[in-house]
């Protein structure tokens, strides 16, 4: 397996506050990599740093061997990023949002519409593309956001709490799509609060106060902490600290 993400001693400070504190880890190509931790643990900041959206204080980040800080502009088209906030336009239709996102990644209208159709069919998404986004349910919005972020077929997909606040049925569909992307060779970097979702990940990093306190496969984490399930495993890890 080749390392597609390599993070060395990454530190991000906002004024006096250290959001990410000297973390080092790597992610392999095609892996589903989970990031867990409480709100404010530094998950979002790590993702944003990798996407070139915050200035880092020290450390190095490499995507496919290329330094992120130096090649931000070249690397961005190879990345898909879904923020935990809804970042599409509420006053546009689904189709208009997709056309806009796709065009920024140099896709033609035909390519965009074809890809949109495929993605929506895969997750069995039934809303009309000509519907204005504003009136839709949270679950639908999440699916549209995901579709927009993977429209351009990126090699690495960063998903920041993609399933927060959506129904169990939608979550199942969501994870089907994520698994499919992974089996297509895409690397998935996902943060979540749900333990059952964490089980889908090949490896999980547990973050607390800007640091990674545990990183391994779900099975190994359970074994290492003598826990029967992941939730208990995390409680044990957090207690130890």
């Amino acid at each position, binding site marked *: 397996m080749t390392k597609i993400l390599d993070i060395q001693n990454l530190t991000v400070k906002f004024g006096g506050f250290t959001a990410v504190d000297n973390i080092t880890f790597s992610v392999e190509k095609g892996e589903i990599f989970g990031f867990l931790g409480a709100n404010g643990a530094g998950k979002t900041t790590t993702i944003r740093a990798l996407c070139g959206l915050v200035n880092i204080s020290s450390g190095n980040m490499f995507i496919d061997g290329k330094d992120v800080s130096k090649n931000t*502009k070249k690397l961005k088209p190879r990345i898909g*990023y879904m923020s935990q906030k809804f*970042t599409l*336009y509420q006053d546009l239709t689904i189709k208009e949002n997709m056309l806009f996102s796709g*065009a920024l990644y140099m896709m033609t209208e035909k390519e965009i519409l074809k890809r949109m159709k495929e993605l929506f069919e895969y997750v069995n998404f039934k809303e009309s593309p000509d519907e204005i986004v504003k009136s839709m349910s949270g679950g639908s919005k999440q699916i549209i956001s995901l579709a927009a972020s993977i429209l351009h077929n990126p090699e690495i997909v960063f998903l920041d709490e993609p399933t927060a606040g959506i129904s169990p049925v939608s979550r199942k569909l969501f994870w089907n799509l994520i698994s499919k992307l992974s089996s297509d060779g895409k690397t998935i970097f996902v943060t979540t609060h749900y333990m059952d979702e964490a089980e889908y990940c090949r490896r999980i990093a547990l973050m607390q106060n800007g640091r990674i306190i545990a990183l391994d496969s779900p099975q190994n984490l359970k074994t290492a902490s003598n826990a029967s399930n992941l939730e208990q495993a995390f409680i044990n890890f957090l207690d130890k600290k």
Partner: protein
Amino acid sequence: MKETLKKIKAIALKEYRHIMRDKFTLAMGFGLPLFLIIFFGFIIELNYDKISIFVKDANPSAQSRAFVQKLSAGDLFKPQYVFSDDPVKYFERNKTAVFINIDRDFGKTISYPQNDKRPQIQILLDGSDNSKAGLVLSYIPSIISNTYAPEQTYEIKMRFIYNGELNSKYFIIPGLIVVIIGLISILLSSLTIAKEWERGSMELLLSTGISPAEIILGKILPYMVMSLIATVVVFFAAQIVFAVPFTGSFIFFFISCCVFIAACLGLGIFISVIAKQQQLAMLISMPVGLLPSMLLSGFVFPIENMPLFFRILTAVLPQRWLMEICRGTFLRSAGFTDLIVPFLALSCFCIFIIILASKKFKTDLEP
């Protein structure tokens, strides 16, 4: 280059869709300019007519009546006789600003000049309205000399060129077009970047690797079209409602407007980039859009009479330069060669502000 154009086009198209779905923006873009030009066009009036004059004639004579008669010729003055000789009473109640006291021996002394007594008229003016007072002061002596010394050896004939009737509308309306278009352009664009920050969509934009300049140019385009349509609306309103003549090159005027609008949109976007919040951006853009163009652009107050510091300050205002182009093309049939300096100044400002906005554009999400 091809990529840049495609990104700019994508932003422009998206922005166009926002505009078409937003009634507030549409109303502001088209309704407000029309409302402003008609509203301000009617209320800003620098011409006086029918200035009331109270005349106290102590001993009416043919000669004094002839004088009062002369006053009422034309529309400028409206004399009326009163019997009280206490002008203060009229001034205090704001009944009139001009009070003329005609001496009881006026008729006699003017017909039969005597060495020890000359004909006398007292003119009392309310100095609290000094523009009116000044006007009266400059007119009345000529009326007097006209009435009593009709045979002169020479004659001065004055003629105003470009604005023959010295109609203040012809002076105000072209300036008003500049003020309105500037205000609308700054207001419209000042919300756009702040809106992206507030709604979180800036995160999406930045994650795609689009550059600030691409975002700014993409946003300027649709608003440019909108402001140009507003310009045409205001232009024809000026022609139809106020019958202001347009004597210069329409193409030059139109191109200048394009540059001016781009400059103002750039300024609005700069405000938006700095403010990052819609409310704050609105609060900043109102005074920035309105005050300098009212006070420092030469719209009403002549730039030549300002202290040196303010004269230099006006040079950085796009409104000041379009004001020159506008008055030149409307009234003086001036063309590109006559107005090359304002045109270049406008172009420089436009390029400068767009580059500045791009440089100040924050491309990270740091809180």
